[in-house]
């Protein structure tokens, strides 16, 4: 075990000598934690709306004002002509077109029934459907108000309405960053601690130093532990920094026990370091390792539930996400940080990630050879 001490000492010396190291450890995570939650904002604002008003009535004016003052919409144009609004959609200047037919107000009062047309530019599907949702909500709300005003005193309401009162648990104001920041921290740990272990070993191959190590009596497991332990330390530092940072900047304080978070982080690092190690045993150059990593990081980020909910993926895709340690960690982060879940609630997560880690590490150790 004495050899292990020298291996780790060497590893730490090299780390701190690397000029970009402190940058990668603190500055990169800080920038990502500030920028990514902003970019990954689910609240859609600045939806461009064109209003075609053939009616020019009080009702059409009132409704238009209500829509524009909601804060979600930006007026692209207010016009009489359908063709002009159509051109705006074609040029991508408008996401939605709301059309008031002529006689809108009159028909509404006289026949108590009137249709309104909404056209949606579905090029950007998310923006379109969310924008449509907002718009329908506002119109329904306005509709209800009108109805209340017009009910004749003394007459009972002939149309019963169901009013939905919603409340959001755990994140009452649906603040997106409370949801995103813990998950982005997972992505960071994966990149900084897990995958740099792979590059580290491949670099030794490239430099030829691994051959010098292979002629020494160092045992396989000593060499691997000598690589993994320093990266566990790096992971601890980045994770602690990230938690502190999200508390200071976003005021996010884990509701659950912080020790549970750390426990899970170590189980996760065990798995992801095993993955990095496995890739390093299959790559001869950093270039190779890089392209393999790039592919996996893309898939991890897209499929781990970081940006889109796993529950809305097709069944086969959900099965795949259950093979990624990262999707478990994102889930655990959200559960413990936002909901205050305890160790009992995440015991299956711990078990699965541990098993994944066991498979990856065994595979990597078997595939790492000192001889050819």
């Amino acid at each position, binding site marked *: 075990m*004495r*050899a292990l*001490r*020298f*291996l780790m*000492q*060497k590893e730490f*010396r*090299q780390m701190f*000598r*690397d000029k970009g190291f402190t940058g990668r450890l603190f500055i990169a995570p800080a920038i990502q934690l500030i920028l990514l939650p902003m970019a990954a904002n689910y609240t859609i604002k600045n939806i461009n709306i064109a209003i075609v008003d053939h009616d020019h009535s009080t009702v059409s004016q009132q409704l238009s004002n209500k829509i524009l003052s909601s804060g979600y919409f930006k007026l692209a144009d207010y016009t009489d002509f359908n063709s002009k609004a159509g051109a705006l959609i074609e040029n991508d200047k408008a996401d939605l077109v709301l059309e008031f037919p002529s006689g809108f107000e009159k028909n509404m009062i006289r026949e108590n029934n009137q249709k309104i047309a909404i056209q949606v530019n579905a090029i950007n599907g998310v923006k379109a459907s969310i924008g449509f949702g907002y718009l329908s909500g506002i119109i329904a709300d306005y509709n209800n108000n009108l109805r209340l005003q017009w009910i004749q005193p003394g007459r009972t309401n002939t149309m019963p309405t169901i009013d939905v009162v919603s409340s959001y648990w755990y994140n009452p104001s649906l603040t997106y960053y409370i949801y995103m920041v813990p998950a982005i921290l997972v992505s960071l740990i994966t990149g900084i601690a897990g995958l740099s272990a792979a590059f580290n070993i491949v670099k030794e191959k490239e*430099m*030829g*130093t691994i*051959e*010098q*190590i*292979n*002629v*020494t*009596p*160092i045992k396989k497991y000593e060499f691997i532990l000598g690589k993994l332990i320093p990266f566990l330390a790096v992971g601890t530092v980045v994770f602690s920094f990230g938690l502190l940072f999200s508390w200071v900047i976003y005021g996010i304080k884990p509701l659950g026990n912080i020790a549970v978070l750390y426990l899970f982080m170590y189980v996760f690092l065990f798995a992801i370091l095993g993955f990095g190690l496995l890739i390093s045993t299959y790559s001869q150059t950093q270039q190779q390792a890089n392209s393999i990593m790039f592919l996996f990081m893309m898939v991890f980020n897209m499929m781990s539930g970081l940006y889109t909910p796993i529950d809305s993926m097709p069944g086969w895709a959900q099965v795949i996400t259950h093979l990624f340690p990262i999707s478990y960690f994102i889930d655990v982060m959200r559960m413990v940080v936002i909901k205050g879940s305890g160790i009992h609630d995440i015991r299956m997560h711990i078990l699965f990630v541990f098993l994944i880690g066991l498979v990856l590490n065994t595979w990597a150790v078997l595939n790492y050879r*000192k*001889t*050819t």
Partner: protein
Amino acid sequence: MSKEIVIRTNKLTKRFDDFVAVDEITFDVHKGEIFGFLGANGAGKTTAMRMLCGLSIPTSGEAMVAGYDVFKQPDEIKQNIGYMSQKFSLYEDLSVKENIEFYGGIYGLSNKQIKEKSGELIERLGLHNEADKLVSSLPLGWKQKLSFSVAIVHQPKIVFLDEPTGGVDPAMRRQFWDLIYDAADKGITIFVTTHYLDEAEYCNRVSIMVDGKIEALDSPEGLRKTFSASNMDEVFYKLARKAKRSAD
């Protein structure tokens, strides 16, 4: 010179698919001897050496290194040999002292031994001013000398040197060979491959490999006589001309 045998091979062979890189080589190396292992590029020198160091598993044959079997006791062999590869392989981002400490440490030297050894080594190489500098800042010749010294820091029985003086100027090569003689005087067996035929003259015995086989093995004088040549260059050309494999 004692006749104790430290390396013995018997029909040692390495195949890569249907390519026979090393073809049934049989030879002995004696303790304290400087054994030159010559051959053209692609003759199979490095592969043979890697098998003896436990980096590559032989396909067939037998080999004993420092009294241990290459098939069964690779770990024991590794404790008793040093190795310096063609490619410079110390850590460029560690200082001279840190490299010595690291390799001393993983070979199991005590802290006291490491301290003594690195003092001794820095003294011998005249690296006082460079001891705390990163290895990447040293000129190639110095790196090679340091590499060699680190390869024998644990006082192995045998040290394997794979073209140790490639790309180094003649004066530096001379100094490098002084280090080799020093080590041999201390009883370390030197197993060295080289492309410089003047260096072959410095060896006690020389073997010449052609197409994976050992075609000649004798002292430099012996070889000159057998091939009625005036120097090692001629011996080498006479043998290498027979090669059918193209250099890689």
